[in-house]
């Protein structure tokens, strides 16, 4: 069982999708419960990973599975090559954890074509899990594109008024990025074959050892970096995010925020940075600048939003700025902060989107000006909202603080000191926009009669929020649970990047293809 | 002595006539026949060159072309009839639905 655990976990939702396809479309309750059960079982299947102590000991890949898949002699070979290490572990866990919550959140929210919705959700889960565990670049690319399609339909079919625009924007934006990445993947592969390096399909571990001339590295890094930067999203490639978030159904927003955005940051950590360490050094100042701009810019824009969901979307831009800054610090604290902040963002922002969904379901509007005084009618909701708000602000004791603090500390210790100082001021803005929004929605007297008869959270909604709140405090108080499994993998990654930088200098000859690109 | 060049020239003339017909005639059936003419000029080339080179491949191709031409005739004529039922015309200038 353990030998096939990862595959089983990844493709179980796909299996579930097939089951869902055979359920009559009128039977909404059965469709929903099937999806819920499938996602829950997937979560249970992933649990052994979280409890496996092997990650605390070794930073390498575990639960490896390897099968040859497509093999056309020397020209093209790709393998089904998967595995998980301390870096992807928590993202896998986050995915399996957030999916049942997302399914539960659709209980009353989705009424048209439930069958299609659930099938796409399950397909999406397979895509996400696959992308996190792929150790073959080509396989990664397949899963990467696989995620795009269900999300496109989730936004385009079940979205709000402007859903077509948002869905197309999301799709084209991401597709442009991924095509660039595809070109780069193919280039690296043929470069590797021509240089005669021992390859194993598109296996990244072999790529890690590849010495790529610096001129080519810049272009390749740009292609990868661009693609991932769109997904993160980094300023100024972020404008698809507010649209996609605002239009997407609640479950879509939650998954988009919690998992899909992490693909970008994960892509940096797993592919763009370790594959092209030399180019990375050149681009770090630029990327760090963009991250910091993202933090300040996202906060300032979020502050003035009139739509709660858009506000949360822009706050994502700011939060992911912290993630990126931490990662680019290239030291243990920064990396750990960035990685943890990915999880935090998944938990906190996912929860915020759920919260927006709760009030949207009740009032069918998300304009801040429509609300006010909700705390009178919805005390439980007020408490939950408050906790999540402060977690998003990064109050010490909640998850947000640990991630932000470590990211800043890492940046401070590396050469990014001034970036860190500017980024730290982001904590002020975070308080401004979140509290201002909270005040306008929850505090004051009820002025809008439509708010008079709002009901407090139902049992289902409380059940959705409780696990998220648990993690808010767990990560805040005892983050070592997560760090102890991340640390070896991060250490290995950092060491490897360091040694690669040395190795790159003393490389051999440049093959033809690279010479074309070596513009220096 | 009639050489392979004569066949070639004849085929070229037939092809040119066919092309000219396709480009200038308005009646769909005439255009259709012009296409057949072009196909046959090609067939002629195939056979002539096959004989000249002593290779049977060309003649086999001709059978293919004839088969395809027959199928094409069946489909094409059916389309023309369907079109005529709609428009009461087989003038090719009325076939302009597929535009901006």
């Amino acid at each position: 069982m353990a030998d096939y655990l990862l595959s089983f976990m990844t493709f179980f939702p796909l299996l579930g999708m097939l089951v869902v396809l055979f359920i009559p479309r009128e039977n909404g309750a059965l469709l929903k419960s099937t999806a819920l059960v499938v996602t829950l079982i997937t979560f249970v299947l992933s649990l052994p990973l979280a409890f496996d102590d092997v990650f605390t000991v070794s930073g390498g890949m575990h639960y490896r599975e390897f099968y040859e898949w497509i093999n056309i002699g020397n020209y093209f070979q790709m393998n089904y090559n998967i595995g998980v290490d301390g870096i992807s572990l928590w993202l896998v866990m986050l995915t399996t954890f957030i999916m049942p919550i997302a399914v539960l959140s659709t209980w009353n929210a989705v009424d048209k074509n439930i069958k299609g919705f659930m099938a796409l959700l399950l397909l999406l889960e397979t895509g996400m899990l696959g992308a996190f565990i792929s150790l073959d670049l080509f396989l990664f690319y397949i899963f990467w594109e696989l995620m795009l399609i269900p999300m496109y339909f989730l936004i385009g079919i079940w979205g709000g008024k402007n859903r077509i625009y948002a869905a197309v924007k999301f799709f084209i934006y991401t597709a442009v990025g991924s095509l660039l990445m595809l070109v780069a993947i193919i280039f690296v592969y043929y470069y590797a074959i021509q240089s005669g390096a021992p390859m194993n399909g598109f296996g990244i571990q072999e790529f890690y050892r590849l010495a790529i001339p610096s001129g080519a590295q810049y272009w390749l890094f740009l292609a990868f970096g661009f693609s991932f930067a769109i997904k993160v999203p980094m300023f100024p490639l972020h404008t698809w995010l507010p649209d996609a978030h605002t239009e997407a159904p609640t479950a879509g927003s939650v998954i988009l925020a919690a998992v899909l955005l992490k693909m970008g940051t994960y892509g940096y950590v797993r592919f763009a940075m370790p594959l092209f360490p030399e180019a990375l050094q050149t681009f770090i100042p630029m990327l760090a600048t963009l991250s910091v701009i993202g933090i300040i810019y996202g906060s300032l824009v979020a502050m003035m939003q009139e739509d709660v969901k858009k506000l949360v979307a822009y706050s994502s831009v700011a939060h992911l700025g912290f993630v990126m800054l931490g990662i680019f610090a290239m030291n243990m604290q920064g990396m750990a902060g960035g990685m943890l902040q990915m999880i935090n963002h998944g938990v906190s922002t996912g929860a915020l989107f759920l919260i927006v969904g709760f009030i949207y379901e009740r009032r069918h509007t998300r304009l801040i000006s429509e609300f006010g005084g909700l705390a009178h009618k919805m005390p439980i909701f007020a408490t939950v909202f408050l906790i999540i708000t402060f977690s998003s602000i990064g109050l010490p004791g909640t998850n947000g603080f640990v991630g932000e603090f470590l990211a800043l500390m890492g940046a401070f210790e590396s050469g990014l000191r001034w970036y860190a100082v500017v980024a730290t001021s982001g904590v002020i803005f975070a308080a401004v926009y979140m509290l201002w929004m909270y005040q306008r929605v929850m505090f004051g007297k009820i002025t809008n009669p439509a708010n008079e008869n709002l009901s407090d959270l139902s049992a289902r909604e409380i059940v959705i929020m409780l696990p998220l709140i648990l993690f808010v405090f767990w990560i805040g108080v005892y983050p070592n649970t997560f760090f102890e499994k991340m640390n070896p993998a991060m250490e290995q990654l950092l060491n490897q990047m360091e040694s690669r930088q040395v190795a790159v200098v003393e490389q051999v000859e440049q093959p033809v293809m690279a010479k074309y690109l070596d513009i220096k | 002595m009639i050489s392979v060049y004569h066949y070639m020239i004849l085929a070229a003339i037939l092809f040119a006539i066919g092309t000219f017909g396709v480009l200038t005639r308005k009646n769909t059936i005439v255009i259709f026949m012009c296409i057949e003419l072009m196909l046959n000029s090609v067939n002629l080339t195939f056979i002539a060159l096959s004989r000249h080179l002593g290779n049977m491949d060309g003649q086999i191709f001709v059978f293919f072309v004839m088969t395809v031409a027959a199928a094409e005739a069946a489909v094409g004529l059916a389309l023309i009839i369907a079109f005529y039922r709609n428009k009461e015309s087989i003038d090719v200038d009325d076939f302009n639905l597929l535009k901006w």
Partner: protein
Amino acid sequence: MYNNLWLIPFFPLVGSIINGLLGKKIKNEKVIGSIGTLAIFASFLVACQNFFGLLGSEQKVFQETVASWMTIGNLQVDWGFLLDPLSAVMIMVVTGVGSLIHLYSIGYMHGEVGFYRFFSYLNLFCFSMLMLVLGNNALVMFIGWEGVGLCSYLLIGYYFEKKSAGDAAKKAFVVNRIGDFGFLCGLLTLFWALGSKGVWTLNFVEISENAHLLQSGGLLVTVVTLCFFLGATGKSAQIPLYTWLPDAMEGPTPVSALIHAATMVTAGVYMIGRMNILFAMSPTTMMVVAIVGAATAIFAASIGFAQNDIKRVLAYSTVSQLGYMFLAMGVGAFTAGIFHLMTHAFFKACLFLGSGSVIHGMHHGYHHAHLHDDPQDMRNMGGLAKKMPITYWTFLLSTIAIAGVPLFSAFFSKDEILWWAFGSTRGHWGLWLVGVIAAGMTAFYMFRCVSMTFWGPQKTDPKAKDHIPESPLTITIPLIILAFLAVVGGYVGVPAILGGANHIHHFFEPVFGHAQELYRIEAHGAHATEYALMAISVLVAFAGIGIAIYMYLKKPELPGKFTAAFSGLHRAVFNKWYIDELYDFLFVNPTKKIGTFLWRGFDVCVVDGVVNGTAWVVKGLSAGLRFTQSGFLHNYAAAMVVGVVVIVGYYVFG
């Protein structure tokens, strides 16, 4: 020996969780109140045990690590606690005053809808504050540091249906966050600065031990301490970040007493005390601290002159007194600063609770008469001494104490500060002068407050006049205890020149002595000078009291004439020198404008404009190209022929 430190913050946390989760079901106010009060009282007992243990112990610094918090690379942060004289005094103040205020709240908050919520928050506050003072490293301190900010937010916004309360709560948190930004920057710089010398630590004890690695008076240590001081100005309401504290009076009165007078706002002072060695290393920062403290003391006192809301007077008084404490820290009188912190906690808590008792009574009267007048406006009071004798006497004693009348607590602490301001190696006579003037002003506005509230004829609406009762026992008992402490609290620090033993000075020796010795911070001067200074400050205090009584009791028409004569000045003072408006103009509105511009102007037009622009360009190009699709078969056929000719021609002739 000390393995139960963690219990001190633990009890209030438990209390908070119980009341927060189950309070709504319990409903019974007595039970809820008891849980809250007992939780903090239990902490008080543990604190006492530790405090007296420390008194009798030779070793003065104890650390206790409960668990590891974060372990990443060279960063190792524990959930650890530190007991030394400084934190021992602080926990005594927090739990002691805290217990009294919890008790008081049972009576004061009686009948409120969110009774359980209030006690839950109050306990949570105590938990945070205790984490702040007990944390053995800067990060645990920061938990408390922000935690008290959170509780302050929650408690100021307790009456959340009032817009002013919501605004004040948000303002408090955001302004505190600006300070926290400074704190974080300082923390990160310090960690890195010490780390680059080979000591990666955030532990206070280790920081003190290794501070000498940094260059004394160097840029780095100045930057670090200035950053920390920015944090302190936010939390302790000093210039330029003091504006949130007066607004914070929107919270219930016990909150004002506990958070905005006795404990939370003193966190900045405590923090400087905790890092005294770093501050001592940077004379520049010390000077800044002293100047800001003195400026705040006199500035806030001036605003206190013209306020009519009883709680606002006390709020500005708090800001002013905090200024004193910073003045003390800035001139190196660490002991005196903490001493004043302690006495201030007693008398200011008593004053706030007294004002709460008055408001409670006034509210009762207005409620009885079905009036909606402002129960906090002193112009509606007067002559309450007879109606509320216990409140009156306790309030009076505390006022005498704050005014600096000899033999009362603040006399000793304030005089110690003024003496250091004058005679310390880091002091200056200018600082002393400002301090003395502010002391006189304090005496004046506090007695103005007493005169308007308790003395003279009663100006309350006649209908409500006779229905202002003395408050119940749960309210008056804390008042009596606090008033007692306000009177005698100073005797732990009677200076040597008055024949005292100055116990507190010796008690704090292990914490502050090292830095003071190392960087030669001491107050020196002739005994005659000391006596003279003391006499001057006493005289100034009595002058302030005299003028207040004369103006507001003997000649009640005088203040009116004054305001008429200097109407511009009065308006400026009454409107708090328009600082809030200035900040709105300078920071708040521009930020909003920038935000709006970035969104509507930049994000939507420029960034998204480029994105949509790309789409439009593609669309435009294809709009042009689609005209090639004419739909005419002949055109397509001709194009094909031409294409074939061109391609074949290219290969044949090209």
